[in-house]
């Protein structure tokens, strides 16, 4: 069975757990604090398959029982944007949560990420595309979900991002949805 070495507070480890759960991939979780810096690691008894969210999602997409296509062309660019955005968001979130005094966590770069996410989600919705990945939830949606779900940790006014709110609600309703600290289970 595949094993994920991740850290419970790490956004990328959460995205890997969420992907496995939504795609019904059996996975054991090992707590590994190194994931906080280097990202999660996927492996099994035979060795390591990938370090970091990109490689893990790529490995998931190659599994025989996974029917989600790996993004190609323009969609690949969106996935790359999503992964970069997640890295920037994770950095800002950790700075905010680890600050000795409360500080304004929403930088211009974070605002830009949310605006782009809102624009992409709104465009997909108006074009009748249910998810960023297409007709079913896919790797792009999973990669951006921690950004949307943990936005409150950065004190963002979610009234400015209705499409992001709609997206969070839809993901939460999926069978196999899992949470992490910061994403309440009771909603």
């Amino acid at each position: 069975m595949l094993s994920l070495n991740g850290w419970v507070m790490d956004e990328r480890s959460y995205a890997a757990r969420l992907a496995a759960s939504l795609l019904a991939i059996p996975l054991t979780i090992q707590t590994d604090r190194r994931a906080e810096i280097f990202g999660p690691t996927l492996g099994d008894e035979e060795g390591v398959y990938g370090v970091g969210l990109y490689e893990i999602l790529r490995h998931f997409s190659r599994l025989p029982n996974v029917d989600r296509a790996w993004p190609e062309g323009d969609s690949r660019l969106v996935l790359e944007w999503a992964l970069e955005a997640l890295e920037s968001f994770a950095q800002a979130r950790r700075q905010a949560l680890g600050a000795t005094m409360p500080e304004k966590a929403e930088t211009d770069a974070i605002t830009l990420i949310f605006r782009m996410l809102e624009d992409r989600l709104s465009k997909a919705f108006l074009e009748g595309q249910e998810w960023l990945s297409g007709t079913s939830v896919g790797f792009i949606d999973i990669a951006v979900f921690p950004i949307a779900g943990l936005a409150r940790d950065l004190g963002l006014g979610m009234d400015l991002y209705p499409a992001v709110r709609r997206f969070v609600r839809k993901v939460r309703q999926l069978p196999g949805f899992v949470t992490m600290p910061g994403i309440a289970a009771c909603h």
Partner: protein
Amino acid sequence: MIPVALSMDVVFGDIVPVRHEVQELVLWRDEEGMVHGWEDRCPHRGVRLSLGFIRNNRLACLYHGWQFDHEGRCRAIPSHPSLNPPSTIRTENFRVEEKAGLIWIALRNDAKRPLVPPAEGAWHGVRSLAIRATLAALREALVLETGQWRVSSDRLLAVHSPEEEITMVHMAVSDASARVKAAEWLLDLRDSMEEIRC
């Protein structure tokens, strides 16, 4: 009345935070489809109700789980399950109307402002877009001298002001097939407004 959201963005199960000037509000829709607009503050410990969740067709606060019904009355306190909460424990409610694909709210502090009736007709929501510009600048750009909304050809535009430097523009169209084009126009408006501001 103040247009604060598109109807399509407040479905059952959604709990929507809204700000207008200094007022913080929460919108939610009950099982019967009615939208409620309250002050975004639990009367118990002051936590934002917009962080809460829906249980038993009531809005529950995330902190201690106090549940408030459609009238804003507290109906259940989980730590005292046998207690019938007194009727004095209630949220501060505002009058809400749903018209023209938008949700409009009457704030108590707008007594000086004429209560302009919301736009009528069948409209299809496009999107609500935050633009980094003052309400005055947006009013000028949209030729909106008074009130909170205007109809321009087949488009309904309505504005409110969550922050001093940010204005939300809500857009709806009469022809559903024109939504994508209308959304592009709205993005162009944002680009031009923010460029002017820079």
